């Protein structure tokens, strides 16, 4: 008999907000020393009251729109109770009764073709803190920086059949969410619980279902699915063990899942509506505004950049990262030429980032500064090599392009008059070489050129120097 796996995913995604979901502490979990992004509320102290961050609601709506969901017109928050040291209030504010999005779908493409995965719901909730186990003191240290950082949980229908489909789905969510500024999706900002069962192909009945909790790396998720599917197959086909419905964890070192035999499985979360949080009503106007503010998708950006004459390769590189598109668009709107802008971002910025061991997604530069550098180069104020130098200083020293050129005497070297002075000085100081050249020894030109470059400390534009040299030599013939 042939079997197929039935897989469903619960994917937690940390939202890219400045502050937490119910208090004003810094929202980004990956930043900061332990417990520096904490207030009495996220340390579980009494007295503070939750007030919902509007941006969280709008980013959840945005995610729902991208995943073709129905956006609820009425959505509320509920409390879920359990004890664990990373949960300071011993309850988590989540959405149980009226989640913000329902009934969506997303198409995933693997080597076997395209399939549609159903989305059951998306809900908003707060994250828990982090625990660090200290072997020296035999204690566990509790860090609440991540407590109350906003998450959306995307609950898929059990529509996946293979690990490949799961990978394609997660990669697609990642690209979509990064591109729409919903989440930075960096390491640890996307975590999955995977539900797995197997059944004879063509059967509608579901087998015993197990859940593997809290995995964050794609390779772990793939390996865990493969392991767990094989375990189910062995159990069903060869009777190696009796499957029970349970929660398991993935051990990445041993490469296997193991049962979490603790009280968590018997927990009763006692959900109830949070009396401190008023319902959120989403009307047509608000929904329309969120739609209007939605950043263009990869597809839309691709079409736009094609019309601007960029190559397929340039477009692919730019649309790989939202920040690159934003930078490119800003350069265009401040009057820079598209091909040039793409080249400065991908070749020049890219080269410098690589040199410093960084990737394109980490590019962080004020568009007006890059625009200014490009302007200086295209206006021959400085040459491209000097422009690169300025760019590196802007990226890694926070320099201002104009001030930097001034301070490093760069502006002068592109300036034709200044270069002409250098050329005249070289011609005056090396009369022998001039005579040789005028007498037909064309090789002498290289010596004169080298002299100029030396004077200009290598910063001269070779083409400009060459042209000026020829012009001045012609005058002396």
């Amino acid at each position, binding site marked *: 008999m042939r079997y197929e796996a039935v897989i469903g995913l619960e994917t937690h995604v940390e939202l890219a907000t400045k502050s937490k979901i119910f208090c004003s502490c810094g929202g980004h979990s990956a930043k900061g020393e332990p417990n520096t992004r904490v207030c009495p509320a996220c340390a579980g102290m009494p007295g503070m009251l939750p007030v919902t961050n509007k941006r969280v609601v709008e980013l959840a709506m945005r995610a729902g729109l991208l995943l073709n969901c129905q956006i609820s017109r009425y959505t509320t928050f509920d409390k879920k*109770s359990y004890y664990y040291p990373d949960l300071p209030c011993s*309850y988590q504010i989540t959405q149980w009764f009226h989640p913000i999005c329902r009934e969506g779908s997303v198409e995933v493409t693997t080597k076997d073709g395209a399939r549609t995965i159903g989305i059951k719901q998306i809900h908003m909730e707060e994250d828990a803190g982090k625990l660090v186990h200290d072997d020296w003191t035999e204690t566990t240290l509790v860090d609440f920086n991540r407590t109350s950082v906003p998450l959306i949980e995307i609950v898929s229908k059990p529509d996946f059949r293979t690990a490949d489909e799961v990978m394609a789905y997660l990669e697609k969510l990642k690209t979509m969410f990064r591109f729409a500024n919903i989440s930075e999706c960096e390491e640890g900002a996307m975590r999955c619980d995977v539900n797995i069962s197997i059944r004879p192909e063509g059967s509608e009945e579901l087998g015993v279902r197990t859940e593997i909790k809290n995995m964050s790396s794609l390779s772990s998720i793939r390996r865990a699915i493969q392991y767990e599917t094989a375990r189910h197959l062995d159990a069903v086909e060869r009777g190696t063990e009796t499957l029970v419905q349970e929660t398991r964890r993935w051990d990445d070192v041993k490469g296997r899942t193991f049962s979490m035999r603790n009280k968590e499985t018997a927990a009763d979360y006692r959900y109830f509506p949070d009396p401190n949080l008023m319902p959120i009503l989403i009307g047509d106007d608000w929904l329309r505004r969120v739609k209007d503010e939605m950043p263009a998708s990869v597809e839309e950006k691709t079409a736009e950049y094609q019309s601007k004459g960029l190559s397929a390769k340039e477009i692919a590189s730019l649309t790989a990262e939202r920040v690159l598109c934003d930078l490119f668009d800003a350069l265009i709107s401040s009057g820079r030429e598209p091909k040039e802008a793409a080249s400065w971002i991908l070749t020049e910025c890219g080269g410098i980032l690589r040199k410093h061991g960084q990737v394109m997604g980490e590019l962080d530069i004020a568009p007006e500064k890059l625009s200014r550098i490009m302007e200086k180069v295209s206006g021959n104020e400085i040459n491209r090599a000097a422009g690169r130098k300025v760019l590196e200083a802007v990226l890694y020293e926070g320099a201002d392009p104009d001030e930097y050129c001034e301070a490093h005497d760069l502006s002068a070297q592109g300036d034709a008059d200044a270069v002409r002075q250098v050329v005249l000085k070289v011609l005056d100081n090396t009369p022998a070489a001039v005579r040789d050249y005028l007498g037909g020894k064309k090789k002498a030109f290289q010596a004169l050129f080298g002299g100029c470059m030396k004077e200009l400390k290598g910063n001269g534009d070779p083409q400009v120097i060459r042209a000026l040299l020829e012009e001045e030599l012609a005058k002396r013939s």
Partner: protein
Amino acid sequence: MGQFVTEIRPGGAIAVDDTIQVKGYETKAGSRILEGFQPLFGAEAVERLEKAGYEIAGKTAVGEFGLDLLGEFSHSGATLGASGGLRGAAAELAAAGTVKGALCADLNGAPRRAAALSGVGFVKPTYGTVSRYGLIPCACSGEQIGVMAKSAGDMRGLLEAVAGHDPKDGTSLPTESYDYADGKAVSEMRVGVVKELTDAASDGARAKVQAQADALRGLGVAVGEVSLPLADAARTAWNILLCAETCNNLSRYDGVKFGYRSPDYRNIDELYVNSRTEGFNFLTKAVILYGSDVLSKGRYFACYDKALKVRRLVWEQSKALFENYDALLCPACGKTEYQPYDIKEAFGAVFAESFYTAIPNLTGFPSVVCGGVQLIGDALQDGRLLNLAEALEGGAAK
């Protein structure tokens, strides 16, 4: 320990009960579990009082988390007064004139009972008018900080100082400030004596209601009898909600982050269980366990959800009465005095007495206690209730 609550700063004017945070004062909400807890910020209501020029006199004891009848089971220390904690600490201070007034949290009617027994006034304002920021939370959907004072005029002044929109409380109504001077003349008002609540009370408590009804008639108020058939259901519903919400809110006290930690543990489970077992009294434990049960998978719809629906029916039934009546008159408590009792009886005793006080907590309607009785009004009609209270004071003086 006794010093903690009985110390009154010289020249102080307003006492604050121990469930309301005041910066610089240990805040225990009457519970050992909060031993040593120093709040990092003061309650909005307290800050507003200070801004309005009032001085904070000190803190008064409450029963653990304000869950008991009158503050008799308190870890804050002994309450003031000769009656052994059965009159309420804040009410005794106000009655004795030691303070001009007090801020007290009304969770299940304790300050209303205390005021009625001590002959002072208390207003539990309309839900959402006074910020709960800085209140040690139990039942967030119906608890409110209220104002205790001898005279209706003082209650009005204090309430005006503390009420108004607070963006730090997501349930705070948008009105920036309130004017509690109501234009309606008392002689044009109609008051309904609630049959179910009055009939059930002791002779002494019923006599007080009759006396105040007569006094109101003497002031030209049209007084009639009204029926609230859901009064008993209102009590059950409120106690279900209160226990469930309190169970949830008290789950933060686990010996990990602040407050009391048992010295006796070998692992995290023992740390939790021993800290909470030693930190809470039996009444609180019973509230937590019952509250947990009404939220459990099998019981949620029969208990908690049902209580939320009954809340709407009680609200509608009361609202219908406010179409014809400016206020409902009833006892604030079923007795005129209380005898000491064992904590094992506390849950039942509080449940019994909350019959008289549950409706304003359940529905958010305002309630004013004066002259030993209770007046309940429509939402945002706190000023009208204070007008009636003022008229009764004047009438009594005559």
